[in-house]
């Protein structure tokens, strides 16, 4: 059974559909990139998978031991966070909250989990630093560590390299690749189509009426890719 199975999804918000007939499956350990034009529905698809936006049609089946909220999520930065007075430690620890149940405070197990993930992301030395004083790349590592606290199975990333410089971007992609090799399933929404083709195993191209899902090799051979390359060459 696949990890996540989506059948004939209709996506949209407040009663307006933005994309229809999207079907795909994700197997454990895959690296899937969701690409498409602005407004084509890729963010909406991701929010629907996370349960933030209600599904307008079709259904999503979680399988293979994946629970609906056991998803690590790396959201886009919000303007609230830019001057938020929180230490790295506080933010990463908040990722373990879903494991708390009704317990009001963190226990030792959760602190250890947070510590392990901070070391994994190489930000342990920054744990007392204020989030707003970090560089863009460091901030993404903090949010990644938080996402890893929430899930050891599936990571969902929303345009994670927006605003990062080329060097940090490359480092970030390598980090994600490494996590994928360690067994995490990755779903990434991205503008960066060349990086998507370079790193992802499979591509989901979302468009209003027609959508494409297939391996990267299939995608590069498809007319979607040809159209895009045509536009770039012009």
């Amino acid at each position: 059974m696949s990890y996540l199975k989506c059948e004939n999804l209709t996506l949209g918000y407040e009663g307006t559909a933005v994309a229809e007939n999207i079907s795909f499956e994700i197997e454990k350990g895959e690296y899937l990139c969701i690409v498409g034009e602005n407004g084509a529905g890729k963010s909406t698809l991701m929010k629907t998978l996370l349960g933030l936006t209600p599904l307008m049609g079709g259904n999503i089946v979680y399988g293979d031991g994946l629970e609906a909220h056991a998803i690590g999520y790396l959201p886009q930065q919000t303007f609230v966070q830019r001057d938020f007075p929180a230490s790295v430690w506080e933010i990463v620890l908040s990722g373990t909250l879903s494991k708390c149940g009704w317990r009001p405070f963190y226990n030792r197990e959760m602190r250890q989990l947070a510590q392990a993930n901070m070391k994994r992301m190489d930000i342990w030395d920054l744990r007392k630093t204020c989030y707003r004083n970090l560089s863009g790349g460091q901030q993404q590592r903090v949010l990644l560590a938080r996402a890893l606290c929430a899930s050891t199975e599936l990571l969902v990333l929303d345009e994670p390299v927006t605003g990062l410089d080329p060097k940090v971007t490359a480092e970030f992609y390598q980090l994600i690749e490494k996590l994928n090799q360690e067994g995490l399933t990755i779903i990434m929404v991205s503008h960066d189509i060349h990086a998507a083709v370079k790193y992802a195993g499979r591509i989901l191209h979302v468009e209003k009426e027609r959508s494409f899902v297939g391996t990267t090799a299939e995608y590069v051979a498809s007319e979607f890719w040809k159209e895009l390359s045509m536009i770039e060459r012009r």
Partner: protein
Amino acid sequence: MIQTLQFYLSYPFVRYALVVGVLIALCASLLGVTLVLKRFSYIGDGLSHVAFGALAVATIVDLGSTSVVVMTVTVIAAILILRTGQNPRIHGDAAIAMLSVGSLAVGYLVMNLFSTSANISGDVCSTLFGSTSILTLTKAEVWLCAVMSVIVVAVFIFLYNRIFAVTFDENFARATGLRAGAYNNLIAVITAVIIVLAMNLVGSLLISALVIFPALSAMRVIQNFKGVVICAAILSVLCALVGIILSILFSTPVGSTIVAAEIVVFFINCLIGKIKAS
């Protein structure tokens, strides 16, 4: 001066005022941190005007217990304001401006048209600026305030980690299964309760100051969330104490003296923050 203070403190109503002032300042500052960070600083202001309008109407219609009516109306308004704030189609700030100015106008109108008291402008002034009402608290009001404050502080401590998560990143919190909407409503309800309680202390025009100043002051000097919350609580309690004592000694209006103390502390913290950063 100390003798004068001792003389005043021998009166129960002065002690009541101190206790109530400190408790309200503590509650307001705890929530203030969340409200300021979530960009809801204006909610205190809007709600206090709603509470003013509700109080005016409740007093005239004579619905028995006015504080219950005011509390209910303000809680409903709080939830409505938070809801519209999340709706991208309605401009949140315009809705709040409309609601708050509207209730202020209707409240004053109703007070003028149907007032039974001879001194309307005195009534209005004390509701807006809380000039004397904190010194006329009854024992029952003090108890009500104490119980409410304990509840607010307890709720805040038990939900502290969740409030942090919802404040820092609502989408992440929701994706990991936290009911962010419920926490937002809870925050709105507690805010409304505090604002109604605080009307006695500083009056409805100055309540926002109690909510936002301690949080803003603490954020100038402290770089983590827990530190900001604790610092805001301490600053707020100190300002309330100093403000009330000064207002007794120099017979100045209680509310504005407390707020003046908050402003002084804010500028001192700005200075400390600048020095630390350089």
